[in-house]
């Protein structure tokens, strides 16, 4: 095995391991992220509280893990819905030149609006909360993937082996099953995986700005928002650990997505 392949494999395994262990650890937390230790408020990291405690004496480590899990699920759902929308739009574009023009117009329009602005508008209009974040991220993140899928489908329609298959009298179902799905599915999966880090980061951004997850949930954006109040007081651990956790998770997922993309490209 070559050196770059080995390191890619190792880093991917490490990323997967980190992610899995975070999710498993968070599952065993129970009530811990909510529990308050009134006599140990704002304590710096120590042996009892590895990441320190917040202003209400809650364990920052437990809250960070819970926040990452929350971000993971919100990001997963948003990425899933985003991918479904992208696929739906790409298929719509196949219905005919007019539909194609319409879909392209929608894609171009959405891409011309800054991401965060669109997110903010949608989340705000929906009144904030978990559902608003998922819908806002899904609605604003599909265009790039839809464009890739549309191109892929257009290419498939013209591909010689598909045309031969048609000429041989194969049914539409056969062509979809044997030619379209095997080609498009990897794109969808990789697209969803690469969309995921964006979804997670934007979820955190929305929660940080106060239109995302509600303040009672230990979402990473909420934790970062809370930490801003304590920056002036020098309580660095409130922001550093959740921020680093978020960064690590995003990097891990990006690593996984990238590896998957390369593996498919190699095939």
């Amino acid at each position, binding site marked *: 095995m070559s050196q770059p392949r080995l390191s890619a494999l190792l880093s991917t395994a490490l990323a997967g391991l980190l992610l899995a262990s975070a999710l498993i650890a968070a599952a065993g937390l129970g009530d811990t992220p909510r529990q308050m230790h*009134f006599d140990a408020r704002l304590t710096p990291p120590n042996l009892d509280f590895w990441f320190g405690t917040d202003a*209400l004496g809650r364990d920052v480590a437990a809250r960070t893990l819970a926040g990452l899990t929350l971000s993971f699920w919100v990001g997963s759902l948003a990425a899933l819905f985003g991918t479904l929308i992208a696929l739906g739009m790409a298929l719509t574009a196949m219905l005919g030149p007019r539909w194609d023009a319409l879909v392209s117009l929608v894609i171009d329009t959405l891409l011309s609006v800054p991401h965060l602005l669109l997110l903010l508008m949608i989340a705000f209009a929906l009144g904030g909360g978990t559902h608003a974040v998922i819908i806002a991220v899904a609605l604003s993140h599909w265009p790039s993937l839809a464009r890739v899928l549309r191109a892929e489908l257009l290419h498939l329609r013209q591909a010689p082996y598909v045309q031969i298959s048609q000429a041989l009298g194969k049914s539409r179902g056969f062509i979809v099953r044997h030619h379209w799905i095997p080609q498009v599915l990897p794109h969808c999966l990789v697209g969803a995986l690469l969309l995921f880090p964006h979804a997670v980061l934007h979820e955190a951004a929305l929660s940080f700005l106060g239109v995302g997850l*509600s303040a*009672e949930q230990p979402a990473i954006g909420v934790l970062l928002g809370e930490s801003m109040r304590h920056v002036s*007081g020098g309580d660095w651990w409130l922001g550093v650990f959740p921020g680093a956790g978020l960064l690590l998770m995003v990097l891990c997922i990006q690593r996984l997505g990238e590896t998957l993309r390369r593996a498919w490209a190699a095939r």
Partner: protein
Amino acid sequence: MPTALRTKPRLRSVSILAGLSVLCLLSASPATAKETLTLAIGGEPEQGFDPLIGWGQYGHPLFQSTLLTQGEDFSPRAALATDWSLSDDRRTWQLTLRDDVRFADGTPLTAEDVAYTFNAAAEAGGRADLSALKHAEAVNEHRVSLTLHAPRITFIDQLYSLGIVPAANRDNGYDEGYGRKPLGSGPYRLVEWQEGEQLIVERNPYFTGPTPPFERLVFLFTGEDTTLRAAQAGEVDIASVPPALDDAYPETMQRLVMQSIDNRGILFPTVPDRGESASNGAPIGNDVTADPAIRYAINRALDRDTLVEVALNGHGRAAFGPADGLPWSRPNETLDAPDLERAAAILDDAGWQRSNDGLREKDGQPARFRLSYPSGDITRQWLAEASAEMLRPLGIDMQPTRRPWRELRREAMHKDAVLFGWGSRSPQEVYTLFHSRHAGDGYFNSGFYANDTVDNHLDAAQAAASVEQANRHWRNAQWDGDTGYGARGDAAWAWLVNLDHVYAADACLDVGELGIAPHGHGWPITANLLDWRWTCP
């Protein structure tokens, strides 16, 4: 050329030296009296400085003067009015005005202006509660009479707080834009107001009271962090300090702690959910909090001293009523240390039994309800979250829920427990919070609390012949030995804490005797502004 080269650096050093010596001389010369005081205490009124819609209800109205002022012992003192009396039927106030009072443009202030101000404020329906006023009338140039619909002991509070504006029919009279260019007879007049940034005022040369100590006041309306930076750089003379940032303020600044009745508490809907809704469509009632046992248990289980430590960084006191320590509140209406066992026994007796997951239930109804609090208020958020945590061992699931004010009004105000804050130097607030007449009247009595005996006490207080007599009735409304709105009676609220208002001020600033502050951290400290002094040379 060589000489020129030699002389230039010499010239430069001479001029630098000269400059330095001038600077030294300047700093060595005795400083002139402080002329400009810079304050960063917030309190910028959104609607401007218009008394008719609420300006001046808390703190000093600055631009306007009031008919009377209130001493620290809550007794009335002369201001614009030199003489005042209430008729025997307690429906008519007669006031005699000073004859030398002028507005900041030099024109005289007369009884016409006073009558106009009261009539217009009653009509405007702002924060000033003038619902009792029938009409105000100028008897002559310096005498005014105020007639009430019915006896109302708390009407005198408006004589302390309503700033007098020039009548609309004058050349310089009140108009729609008044809030942004206020004209009054107060100690200061407006120089410039950059909304959201700063307000600059200077002495009113026509002010008839004692000369204000500072020629110019600059109010900075900056955020918490900007204010802190400005204080660290020595650019503000007095700043309001949020509890969480107390340690970050410079040691060299003195801490001024103003005790307050600026309280926070949990309002409970006291009626069950019957599917009804208020006029704005907000649903009414909560089946869990309508049970008095739940309210008693919560009142006994909450550890208020810990809440003060946690949410206020120790800057406050436990609260047991809406006006702790004031003459219209019972002095000993406190609860002993939190008692979870007693609270659990109350719930057991009332039939709230623990289910398998630890949550209590009664007739299939779980002891679960939301505690709504307005978004953007970290103190209320911490109070809500810490209170909920304290009730969990009891088997009550109180769910803190952040909501924007608009949503809170539209959906939650009458059906959720709500973390509200009140605190007034007038007992009128007790009346509006607990009288059934005010049930569902905006933020007043939004829990639809109703008790005929309490209503009778409150009405008797308003109709009382003297303040002392009224105070007795106010106290009976809280607990008369049998019933009341307080924790021993119907426990309509679980009052949590009274905030201390903390300020960091320059060591040279002497603010005199600070009174008890009402709701609102910031502007109330200006109540005795005219007593402030700069003690350094």
